[in-house]
């Protein structure tokens, strides 16, 4: 059953008819040609499809496109500033070789942007020792908060360093 769907994707309003069964990931990739979010496991286990959805990091494979009428999607490709400069997280991934093949990178970058926002907003994590104290961006905190993004090349040391730098905790 087809339904009309309007999304803002990386700043541009896009309207497309989608079958109700279409995931947000497939709507972006197959219907709108936005291939930045990647299909890894397609079951919410790898994080490679992560985007910023209505301001928060979000998987696109475990959600139906039709449930997101009117949503704002920012992919890793939409993170550049108005002047074309790379987002500090993107620059940090380059500076620290936070990837090898690059397939998981758009999801890692979006997730890292979300992690830094969440730490600024005071969200605690599983490894935060004191729930009453504001969290700090320690390496353990970064590892825990980025655990939803897998990298089969094993570029984790570079990813960790990149998030540390982008978070100003270098």
């Amino acid at each position, binding site marked *: *059953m087809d*339904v009309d769907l309007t999304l803002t994707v990386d700043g541009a309003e896009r309207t497309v008819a989608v*079958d*109700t*069964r279409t*995931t947000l990931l497939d709507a972006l990739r197959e219907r709108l040609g936005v291939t930045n979010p990647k299909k890894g496991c*397609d*079951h*919410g286990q790898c*994080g490679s499809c*992560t985007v910023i959805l209505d301001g*928060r*990091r*979000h*998987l696109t494979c*475990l*959600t*139906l496109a*039709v*449930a997101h*009428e009117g949503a704002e999607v920012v992919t890793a490709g939409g993170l550049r500033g108005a002047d074309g400069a790379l987002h500090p997280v993107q620059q940090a991934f380059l500076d620290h070789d936070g990837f090898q093949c690059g397939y998981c990178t758009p999801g890692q970058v979006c*997730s890292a942007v*979300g*992690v830094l926002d*969440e730490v600024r*907003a*005071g*969200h*605690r*994590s*599983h490894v*935060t020792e004191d*729930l*009453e104290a504001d969290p700090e961006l320690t390496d353990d905190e970064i*590892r*825990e*908060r*980025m*655990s*939803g*993004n897998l990298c089969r090349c094993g570029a984790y040391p570079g990813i960790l360093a990149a998030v540390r730098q982008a978070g100003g905790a270098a």
Partner: protein
Amino acid sequence: MRDFAYHRADDAAGAVALVAADPDARFLGGGTNLVDHLKLGITSPGTLVDVSRLPLDQVEELPDGGLRVGTNVRNSDLAAHPAVRRDFPGVARALLAGASGQIRHQATTGGNLLQRTRCVYFQDVTTPCNKRDPGSGCSALEGYGRYNAVLGLSEACVTTHPSDLAVALAAADATVVVLGPEGERRIPLVDLHRLPGHHPERDTVLEHGDLITAVQLPASAVARNATYRKARDRASYAFALVSVAAGLELDGEVVRDVRIAWGGVAHKPWRALLAEEALRGAVLTEDAVREAASAELAAATVTAQTAYKVDMVRNLTALALTRLAEGTGR
């Protein structure tokens, strides 16, 4: 995947009426589990009624110090709420121990409780499974059984409930507010989920068309001095092998009140009432906790693959309660 109609609900009563009137309809919340099940062919509804935008997304602080949590409060927001961190740290810890940052933004309070087992055979439609296909048999009985239950299991089903949040809510004496076709009713969280018996296809006591609208948490000393500990195969982003939600109120060294609930051991969050009873009025020592846990675990049924869970849950319970007694365990 079977084609389905999609309705975005405007109000809770309308959503309940739509689903109740159509045996082929299902509620759609955050979707982290249901959308996966659609892909895997575990369920094939004809209609999805999307309740995820209903304005049931507030955490309300009640005059008596308790909380009323709307069903659409996302797991990340509930964990971050100051009143939850302060007065229900076990609940906050359980939420933060579950899933990933992305999934916690998507998953709802009610949906978390209604997620289904991650038993590999339930999720593999090519294998027999009484929960997915009643009467087909249980592949886990003689198959991969590392995650199987040790308490309250039946010949029909040996799986465990996967939620971390539900275990913490069981220890926090939470109540689930349910809207059904006949109106609203309240169900203690410990009575929401079922043991498998002969009908493992039924996870909960809810009827078709029943919608969880809120979870209520009563304030108490055992809820304030509480924690959640989870043992798993990797440090993060994995389901529990076993888990413990514990709350403790001491009078000197003597246990005035205590709450113990276990995850990863049964088809439902397992409130360890025998262990609690053994500890009330006793001096809290590690040995006393181990003895109390052993009393609860006397009923355990284990296999070579699950025997480790008995020791693991006893150890974890001892760790949780002795740290709470020291004032360092929240």
